């Protein structure tokens, strides 16, 4: 579903963010990506999102060679991927419902369909009663769940998460991870970047470890 073939990324200032990274993530897999901050986790996610292009190597996502996706095709590519951000990236001037609905509005869905899907997604993350609430009135964990609902509302086949439990206490983190596992069980391929090693080791999923841009451990369950 997601494959990196000897991918390197060097930023213009000369910093090597990724060096010769090759990974292969199968359909329906849930995979962790770990490493210290600055090890290249975010860069790897950015390459999948086409927020950056690799300096060398090939990235293929859902059968699509990203080297061939031109600037015009980037929005379409991003619509096929759900993303959960560490800092939530919610629109603070709009209620929860509108935030979750955003990908569907962009996708041009009918408003009845939007209502149905948004409520289904909010129900899934346990925030159905808060659909009219403004994001700032929510706790950090709730905001993160709104972010997750937004990521899954378009029913993507791939879900990326960048430090989704970054600022949450262990109990809430476990709850969020459990949500991801549920989505994984219905067939979503999930890649979670996290440095919460304690949590990761408790969940038994494949884990890739990056150190200074190199893959030092991968594929082990």
């Amino acid at each position, binding site marked *: 579903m997601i494959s990196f073939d000897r991918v390197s990324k060097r930023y213009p200032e000369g910093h090597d963010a990724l060096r010769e990274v090759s990974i292969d993530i199968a359909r329906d897999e849930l995979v962790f990506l770990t490493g210290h901050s600055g090890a290249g986790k975010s860069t790897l996610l950015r390459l999948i*999102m086409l*927020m950056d292009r690799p300096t060398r190597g090939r990235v293929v996502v859902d059968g699509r060679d990203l080297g061939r996706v031109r600037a015009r095709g980037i*929005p*379409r*590519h*991003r*619509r*096929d991927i759900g*993303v959960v*951000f560490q800092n939530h*990236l*919610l*629109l603070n*001037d709009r209620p929860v419902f509108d935030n979750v609905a*955003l*990908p569907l*509005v*962009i*996708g*041009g*869905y*009918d*408003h009845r369909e939007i209502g149905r899907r948004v409520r289904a997604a909010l129900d899934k993350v346990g925030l159905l009663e808060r659909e009219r609430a403004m994001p700032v009135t929510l706790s950090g964990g709730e905001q993160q769940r709104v972010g997750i609902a*937004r990521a899954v509302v378009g*029913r993507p*086949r791939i879900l990326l998460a960048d430090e989704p439990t970054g600022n949450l206490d262990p109990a809430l983190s476990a709850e969020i991870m459990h949500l991801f596992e549920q989505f994984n069980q219905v*067939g979503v391929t999930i890649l979670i970047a996290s440095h919460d090693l304690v949590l990761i080791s408790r969940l038994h999923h494949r884990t890739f470890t990056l150190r200074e841009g190199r893959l030092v451990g991968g594929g082990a369950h």
Partner: protein
Amino acid sequence: MARRGDGSRRMGASLSRALLRDRYRAWQQHHRLSAADSLHRILESPVSSLLTCLVIGIALALPVSLDVALDNIGRLGGAWDSPAQISLFLGAAPAGGSRELAAQLHDREDIARATFVPREQALEEFSGLSGFGDILSSLEENPLPDLVLVTPRKDLSQPAVAALREELLALPEVEEAVLDLVWLQRLQALMGVGQRIVLAMGGVLVLGAVLILGNTIRLAIENRREEIVVVKLVGGSNGFVRRPFLYTGLWYGVGGGLVGALLVTGALWYLAGPVGRLAASYDSDFRLAGPGFMGVLELILVGGLAGLAGAWLAVARHLRAIQPR
């Protein structure tokens, strides 16, 4: 996992037509949403929005009121008594015969008035007006001929007046016939200059309006930078991101056009009384003409186009620069 892309690939042409219709409907729906949302945002901060519209309105009202003024002057020129006057310079003939000719001409149907000016009177007037009195009085002989001033009937067209001049010139007593159109030509030339000035000013001021709106939209884009980043991250295309800002520009421009129309109409209303009294003192029923309904529509259209242009300018320059980092 019902994904629309896959569905269309599998089911062929009829479905892909349906998909096209879906996408068209989605596009239409987003236009409606963007239009409503941007209008809502403008109305949310009425004071600053009104100020923006005022600036645009004033910029548009200036050239438009000049144009309206020119238009009125033009109508005034047209409403004047037939401007043409033909001066017939007579050859050496006894004064009695000249007076008779004037009387004959006066009776013609296509002539409203024919006034005889004897050469002595002409000399007197000339020396009084020109300041050459001393020189003229030193002349032994009056160098001026007798003169008949012919005013053609009001409704004669310019070619008809010219033909009349030819006809009068052919008369044996007449040495020279001069059609006095100079002042009308000057008025028309002045109007031409005025129109150029209006066009140039209008162009510059509309450009100013475009730039002001461009700047307003730039600020709106800056204010919503985070939102733009999020929309781009979840797959919003450039068109999707652009749309609300284009509508914002359009609304500001339309608002500016409305304000401009109000200003011009208000100014006309303010002037109507004094102009009416002035016209009455000249026994004229002249009345100021406004830009009219079509003029107002045009003004709003120009405002809207200026708004769109400004928004395009800002969007093209700044939206691309905002990328998720």
